[in-house]
């Protein structure tokens, strides 16, 4: 799969402060790419560089295999974390203005806006001033303005903040539909549950560096703890626990009456793998449940940052 966006060796300094220290990310086409990291890690600086709002001190950004040019802004849709609209301006007029700034013709913009306003059921707001809308309502308008010009690359910075759960789901579905239609999405957030749901790839930023990136499933495998949750019944070998502990680490155990059933947390030792464990268990009883404890994005996030802090 080819990469739609490649930002290589980006360095950005503000005076003495280094916001991005030789950062590289590669965003595969038609995927959702999560840009994660604590506050001040450099995510917004990178996003602003991709949007050509600021210029990097060194490094290159390639879109579709070509260096980024000012004309590329019409291929990018950006919804910043700190978003806003002109308060005194009417919704429809404002959406038209912003769409035209992205290079759309007035006619085209009107047609597409009409489609989206119907889709998100906000047609009645067209003539209202933004200051009459609630925050969530304004966010919907903002979302439409971001995606209206059908950009190849969509960048959302904390897209769900300010939405109620119903509207957050609505927006999430729209983002997935856009991805399915071929758009590439960069998605910056602190909310890890949405990362699990949406992101195929992630990059984790900490202290101006990209400390971890790749396919989310690969990263999870890398961060797996080799701990398995096991539930058994009809245990034939009453000494199972003792024998098990010779080859594996038992982290916790809960043995039922008469030593007939048990639920365990078992960690693999160096030489053994998952198949060894399951084979061994199968010989001594019936397995009701067997699952590997895979860390969620949140745990990976915290772990990676802790490791980075130790370095």
């Amino acid at each position, binding site marked *: 799969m080819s990469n739609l966006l490649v930002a290589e060796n980006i360095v950005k300094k*503000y*005076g003495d402060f280094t916001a991005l220290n030789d950062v590289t990310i590669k965003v595969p086409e038609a995927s959702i790419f999560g840009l994660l990291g604590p506050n001040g890690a450099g995510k917004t600086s990178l996003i*602003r560089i991709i*949007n*050509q*709002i*600021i210029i990097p001190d060194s490094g290159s950004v390639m879109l579709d295999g070509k260096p980024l040019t*000012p004309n590329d*802004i019409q291929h*990018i849709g*950006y*919804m*910043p974390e*700190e*978003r*806003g*609209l*002109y*308060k*005194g*301006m009417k919704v429809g007029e404002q959406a038209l*203005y*912003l769409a*035209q*700034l*992205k290079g759309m013709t007035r006619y085209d913009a009107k047609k597409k806006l009409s489609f989206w306003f119907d889709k998100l059921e906000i047609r009645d707001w067209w003539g209202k001033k933004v200051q009459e809308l609630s925050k969530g309502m304004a966010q919907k308008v*903002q979302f439409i*303005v971001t995606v209206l010009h059908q950009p190849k690359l969509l960048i959302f910075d904390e897209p769900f903040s300010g939405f109620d759960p119903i509207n957050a789901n609505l927006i999430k579905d729209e983002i997935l539909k856009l991805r399915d239609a071929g758009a590439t999405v960069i998605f910056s957030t602190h909310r890890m549950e949405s990362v699990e749901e949406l992101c195929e790839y992630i990059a984790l930023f900490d202290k101006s560096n990209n400390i971890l990136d790749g396919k989310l499933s690969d990263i999870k495998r890398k961060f797996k703890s080799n701990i398995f949750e096991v539930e058994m019944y009809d245990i034939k070998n009453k000494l199972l626990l003792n024998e098990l502990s010779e080859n594996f680490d038992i982290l916790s155990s809960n043995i039922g009456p008469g030593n007939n059933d048990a639920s365990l947390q078992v960690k693999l030792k160096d030489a053994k793998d998952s198949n060894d464990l399951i084979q061994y268990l199968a010989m001594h009883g019936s397995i009701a449940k067997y699952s590997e404890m895979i860390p969620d994005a949140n745990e990976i996030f915290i772990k990676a940052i802790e490791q980075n802090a130790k370095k």
Partner: protein
Amino acid sequence: MNKLKLIIKREFFAKVRNKTFLVMTILSPLLVVGLGALVGYLSKVNQDSIKIIGYVDDSQLLITKDFDSSKTIEYKDLSNVDIVIAKSQVEHGDFYGFLYVPKKDSISNIATSIEFYSKEPPSLQVISEVEGMVGYRLNYILLERNGIDSEALDASKINPNIKILSFSGEKSSKLIRGVKIAIGLSAGYLIMMFIIIYGAMVMRSVIEEKTSRIIEVIISSVKPFQLMMGKIIGTALAGLLQFSIWGVILLILSIVATAMFGADTTSIGTGNLPMQEVEVLDVVAKTEMQIIIEELIRLPVLPIFLAFIVYFLGGYLLYSALYAAIGAAVDNETDTQQFMLPVIIPLILGVYIGFASVVNEPHGTIATIFSMIPFTSPIVMMMRLPFGVPWWQIVISLLLLLGTFILMVWFAAKVYRIGILMYGKKPTYRDIYKWLKY
């Protein structure tokens, strides 16, 4: 380029559709003309009322002719009653004041002991008229006593009226100088007002984009420089529209007002002068009126108007770039104060120099220097222009203005580019200096 046009259009309509713009545009000229008409009307009413002054002349020196009523004062002889009774008559009657000329051994003693009583402090105009009347008679008597034939003296009095000519032989008038000063001062003052009002508008518009947080959305579509220039130009167009509307309304209203109140300017302008001088002035004015008109027609109206537009735009662009930078640097309007002072000072300086220096010596050193310095040149040069400025001075001043404008836009764009994305901390001058290097 297309995007710049879009931004200009939006800024223009955002200003013009604003309710305050509409109210200001319509109300301001009404207020100005209304106030002017009111002042004119009041001063006319004031002058129309004849003030009655009672008098007792114990010296017996003043003659009946001296107490002939003038346009504004009517004298009433109260000598037939005692002075105490006369005084109380005036105090309780329908009198403006009471004049008492005592009997003394010498004229000079009389001159210093004349008394005037009134319920309220009398107007300067009345006092000077009374003083003029008494002074004239005492003078006359003194001359006669000293054996000087006052008739012959009167006959030999002459009022010189120096005709002012330029070397090319054109007649000039003393009054035309006042007209030129008025034209220059109002043009310079107008420029200052426009810069302050519309510069602040640009600044507020930048701050609004920052506080509403739309700025990041916009500058992911256009360059900050485009946004800044669009804002400056759009606001300028709104201002020009407002000025043209004002011009039209003012013209119509003053025609109406003149017709209604018949406000004749000579009576307002010379109202405070004693009668004799007014008469002299009237004569002069009548013979000079034509010269003034001729001279006004000869004034290079078109070049002055063109220069006004050029300096007006140059000055506005220069300052509004600064205002935009200030707006970008801060989060809200209250934080702007520390940066406003360096902007306001040169503007005020320009106007002061105009009033203090250009009026006396349009081509003096100070006036010339400040009409070259770009931060004051739009104001000071406009004040000098009606007096005729050598073309090379205008060229130098315009070049300097243009150069500084470009420099200022470069500076403002740098500050703007960084400032619009900075929130929270109130920046210092040092911070802004650092931004220049980002």
